[in-house]
């Protein structure tokens, strides 16, 4: 069975006053049917840029995208714009980080959901609104009938994100892309939204690509994980595998940096990864993580490590990955 989404060697650069900036430098991954893939990284890793490229949401004039993005076998990167429009919101849905600014403040919530339906399906306005109401109930909004007629600013953050989810799922997409959906929400609301997404996943069978920097979210929701750093993929594998046997020093750094309730004051300060993420203009030869890495050696600064298997289905790009002897 063809994978739902197949990304190969994706490269995204932005034109800027300082020249061309390579935000994503050759990223490849696959999303299978009914699978949840998490793309993890810090800010500046290129994960959001990758997500936006999946539906070609970038500003065409300042952005150069190359590589291949195949949705169920169809190449998206050179598809005509009209074809993209029929895919967006229809076969692929997307939700964003800031639900307040992502909803049109002057349109009623119900109308915005109905629009998502009417853009792709032929039906009357009232029928679309009925469907919208059903969707609102499905995403767990109480008193949905009243909420339909309200405006975004009258809803709470969690409710707005539910509305975004309803809009994205309106046409039963095969794949839902979620760009940091819980980052802007309170912790308790985060949990509710994650529950909702899990429930939708089982009910509709759609795949999910979730972009996040929060490893807690990853462990809750994702089947597989892709770790990105400075525009490239540095590790990939099943969630349990990554969490229990991280191969790349960066992944290990992320995991050990998570504070745990079991720690006491006497365990010392929280571990952090020294240094900071290089900006795209600072990329040099060799491994981009080398300067911050405690395993690095001279080879790390000379040649960029390739992705190699550490275990079946588990890839890492490191000259000193766990499991491989030191040369």
């Amino acid at each position: 069975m063809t994978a739902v989404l197949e990304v190969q060697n994706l490269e995204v650069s932005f034109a800027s006053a300082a020249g061309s900036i390579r935000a994503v430098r050759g990223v490849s991954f696959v999303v299978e049917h009914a699978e949840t893939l998490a793309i993890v990284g810090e800010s500046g890793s290129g994960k959001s840029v990758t997500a936006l490229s999946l539906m070609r949401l970038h500003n065409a004039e300042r952005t150069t995208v190359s590589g291949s993005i195949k949705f169920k076998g169809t190449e998206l990167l050179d598809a005509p714009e009209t074809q993209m429009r029929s895919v967006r919101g229809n076969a692929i849905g997307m939700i964003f980080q800031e639900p307040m600014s992502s909803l049109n403040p002057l349109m009623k919530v119900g109308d915005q959901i109905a629009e998502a339906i009417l853009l792709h399906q032929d039906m009357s306005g009232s029928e679309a609104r009925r469907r919208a109401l059903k969707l609102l109930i499905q995403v767990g909004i109480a008193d949905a009938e009243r909420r339909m007629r309200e405006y975004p600013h009258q809803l709470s953050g969690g409710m707005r994100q539910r509305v975004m989810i309803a809009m994205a799922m309106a046409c039963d997409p095969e794949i839902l892309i979620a760009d940091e959906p819980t980052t802007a929400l309170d912790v308790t609301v985060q949990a509710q939204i994650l529950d909702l997404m899990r429930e939708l996943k089982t009910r509709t069978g759609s795949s999910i690509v979730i972009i996040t920097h929060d490893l807690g979210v990853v462990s809750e929701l994702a089947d597989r994980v892709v770790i990105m750093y400075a525009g490239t993929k540095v590790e990939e594998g099943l969630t349990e595998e990554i969490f229990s046997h991280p191969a790349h020093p960066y992944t290990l750094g992320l995991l050990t940096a998570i504070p745990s309730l079991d720690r006491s004051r006497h365990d010392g300060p929280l571990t952090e990864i020294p240094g900071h993420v290089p900006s795209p203009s600072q990329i040099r030869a060799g491994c981009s993580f080398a300067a911050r890495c405690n395993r690095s050696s001279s080879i790390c600064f000379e040649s960029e490590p390739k992705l190699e298997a550490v275990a079946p289905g588990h890839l890492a790009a490191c000259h000193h990955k766990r499991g491989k002897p030191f040369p």
Partner: protein
Amino acid sequence: MNHQASPPCVATPLRAVELPSRPLVIRKVLKFIKRHPQIVAGASILLVVALIAVFAPVLGTVDPRALSVTKRLRPPSAEFWFGTDALGRDLYSRVVYGARISVSVSISCAFLSCLGGTIVGMISASGRWADSAVMRVMDGFMSIPSMLLAIALMAATRGSIGTVIIAITVVEIPRVARVIRGVMLALREMPFVEAAIAAGSTTPKIIIRHLVPAVISPLTVQATYVASAAIIIEASLSFIGAGTPPTIPSWGNIMADGKALWQVKPQLVFIPAAFLGLTILGVNLLGDGLRDALDPRMAERS
């Protein structure tokens, strides 16, 4: 075992030092022109106009007020480069001297309204009570269409250039005041002002060190807008006979004189009009360019 390696002196090979192809100063100037074409264009136009105004007597002109009954309505010729008007006056000289009015009025009005507007704006931002009182009055002024307010002011006084300048200044102060007030109010909220107060900085010091720099760039931009408006209002007032007294040539005056015969002698109207339009364009270009340069946020949008 594992050891920490420091990044070696990497990668970039030594490049031969390139000698600049032109002297550094010229390169810098060209770069400036490329990045700020509007400022350069505007400033150049204004420079030319200002030079015309300053050097009017030596630019081949005669007395702009000299009448000549016998030489009325002549077309352009070697003697009268733009021809003569209905009273036999040399159009070229009148237009050249007319630049003086536009230049002096725009500069004076810009300066005075910025001064007045800053004072009013600062008073307004100084306290809640002062703010509502002053802003209410400013609202009153801004409720009167500027041209009409200027006309009313001119009608209530004896016409002279000084009166025109005052009239335009009064009309433009509310707008400048509003901008300054906005800047002041925003600044008051800013953390660094609170920090300065907490550190024991006295009020005059705060004003000079923090407030003045913040005010300078919006003020400069406003000054250009006022200058532009001043030229337009002066010309319009003169055109309808409520501005510069007819004894002193100003571009608006000249057009007013040519109004009756414009269809047969269009140059009487269009030559001063061209000068007027070009000058205003210069001020506007300069203002736009300054605004883009000084406020990068807005420049991105434009």
